[in-house]
C-alpha cells in the first residue's frame, strides 16, 4: 500500500533525523531559557520572552530569511563558521535542523517554563536548608520535578520540527537527500504532473508520525507525573 519511491523514503528518513537532532540540540537551550524566564528577574526579561516567541508569530518565511542573512555562506556569522570550523548551514541538512530548531523553540520553552513554574518553590527552599547549592537544587529537585513538562515540550518540538516548511524552504531550499524534508517533498510533488498520489501517501505518513509523536508525548508525560508522585 505504501509503495513510496526511494526519494520519498529519503525525505521521511531525513525529516525524522533532522527533527530529532534539532530537538536534542535545542533542549539544553530550551531548559536554560525556560529557567531564566521562570525564575529570573532581570532587565530585559520581557524582551527575551518576546524574542523567544517571535518564531511562533513571525511568518515562517521571514524567519527563514533572517536565518539566511545571518547564517548563510556569505553572511558574516555563516562565513566565519564555514571558514574556521567547516560548519555550513545554508542548503545543508544542518541548516534544516537549525530552521526546525528555531521554529520549535518557543513551544519547547513554553512547556518547560510552565512546568518549572508549577514547582513548589518551598521544596527548593527545603533543599537549600539541606545544604544543596543552587546548581544541585536545580539538578536534584527542579529538573526531576519539571520532567513531565520537559518531555511534553520535547515531543511537541519534535512534531513541530517534523512539519516545518516555510523557514526550511527559504533557508535551505529543496535538495533531495539533503534538505528535502517531508513537507518540502509534498510541496514539490504537488507540482509534478501525476504526483498527487505520491503526495497523498507522504501526507498520510506525516500524519501518522505526528499522531504517534503526540500520543507518545501524552503517555510519557503522564507516566512521568505518576512516577514522580510515587505511583
Amino acid at each position, binding site marked *: 500500500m505504501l509503495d513510496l519511491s526511494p526519494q520519498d523514503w529519503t525525505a521521511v528518513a531525513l525529516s525524522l533525523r533532522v527533527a530529532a537532532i534539532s530537538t536534542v540540540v535545542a533542549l539544553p537551550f530550551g531548559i536554560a531559557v525556560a529557567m531564566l524566564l521562570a525564575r529570573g528577574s532581570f532587565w530585559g526579561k520581557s524582551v527575551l520572552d518576546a524574542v523567544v516567541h517571535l518564531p511562533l508569530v513571525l511568518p515562517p518565511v521571514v524567519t527563514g530569511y533572517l536565518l539566511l542573512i545571518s547564517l548563510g555562506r556569505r553572511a558574516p556569522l555563516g562565513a566565519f563558521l564555514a571558514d574556521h570550523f567547516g560548519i555550513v548551514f545554508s542548503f545543508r541538512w544542518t541548516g534544516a535542523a537549525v530552521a526546525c530548531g528555531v521554529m520549535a523553540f518557543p513551544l519547547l520553552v513554553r512547556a518547560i517554563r510552565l512546568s518549572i513554574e508549577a514547582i*513548589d518553590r*518551598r*521544596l527548593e527552599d*527545603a533543599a*537549600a*536548608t*539541606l*545544604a*544543596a547549592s543552587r546548581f544541585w537544587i536545580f539538578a536534584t529537585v527542579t529538573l526531576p520535578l519539571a520532567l513531565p513538562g520537559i518531555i511534553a515540550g520535547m515531543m511537541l518540538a519534535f512534531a513541530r520540527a517534523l512539519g516545518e516548511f516555510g523557514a526550511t524552504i527559504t533557508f535551505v531550499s529543496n535538495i533531495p537527500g539533503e534538505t528535502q524534508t517531508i513537507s518540502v517533498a509534498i510541496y514539490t510533488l504537488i507540482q509534478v504532473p501525476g504526483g498527487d498520489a505520491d503526495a497523498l501517501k507522504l501526507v498520510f505518513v506525516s500524519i501518522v508520525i505526528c499522531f504517534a509523536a503526540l500520543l507518545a508525548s501524552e503517555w510519557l508525560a503522564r507516566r512521568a507525573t505518576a512516577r514522580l508522585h*510515587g505511583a
Partner: protein
Amino acid sequence: MAGAARYRASSRGLTMLVVKAKKQLGDFTLSGSFTSEGGATALFGPSGAGKTSIINMIAGLLRPDSGRILLDDDVLFDHAAHIDVPVSRRRIGYVFQEGRLFPHLSVRHNLDYGRWMGGYPSDPDAFDHVVELLDIGHLLGRRPGKLSGGERQRVAVGRALLMRPRLLLLDEPLASLDAARKREILPYLERLRDEARVPLIYVSHNAAELRRIATSVVQLEAGTVIARGGIELLDAAQADMLA
C-alpha cells in the same frame, strides 16, 4: 547509645544563638532580639506575630533589613558588614510546617539528602539511630505521597537531623495534624530534645505543646519580643487568654 554520643560530640556543648534583626513586611515591622543557649527554645506567640519570619531569617530564607545573627562564633548575617551566609552553608536544619518532603525521592533518599549534599561520609549508625528515634524504619522504601501526615512529619524531622545541623528549627511541626496525631508525635519530639542533643528553636502558638517541649521561652507579639524566660511565661500567657 553510640549514635547519641556522636551527636553529643558534634554539638559544641552549649550553643549560643544571638538574634538581633529587623524587617519590614508590608505594614508590619518585625523586630526580634533574643539569645538562645541550647536546649529547646520556644518561640511563642499568636498567629501572625512574626515567628515564622524570624526563623526564616535565622535559616537564611528571609533577609533582614538590618541587624546581626550569630551562631556561636559564626556570623550568619551582619547588615553593616555586608555579610549574608547563603542558606546552603548555614548548616541549620529546618522542619517545615508542611514537611516539604521531596515527592520524587523515597523516604530513604529524603533522609539521606542533607548528608549527601553536605558531603558527609555515610554513617549507618547515625542513620539507624535517627530512624529508631523516630520509628520510621518501616517507611524507608515508600514515597512521601504514600505517608500519613504524622509519618511525613517524622520523616521531615529525621531528614533535618541527618544533615548534622548545628541548630534545628521547627516551624509549628504539629499544626497540620489532628489531636490524635499530635499526641502520637509529641513523645518523639521530647526524645529528640533529650537524645539528639541538637539545640532546638521550636515555633508554636500552642502553649500546651510547648509546655512539654520547651526549656526556655521567647514570647513574641505583633512583631516584637515582649518577654524572655522559662516556661512559666506560658502559664502567664494562658492566664491572659482566659482572663
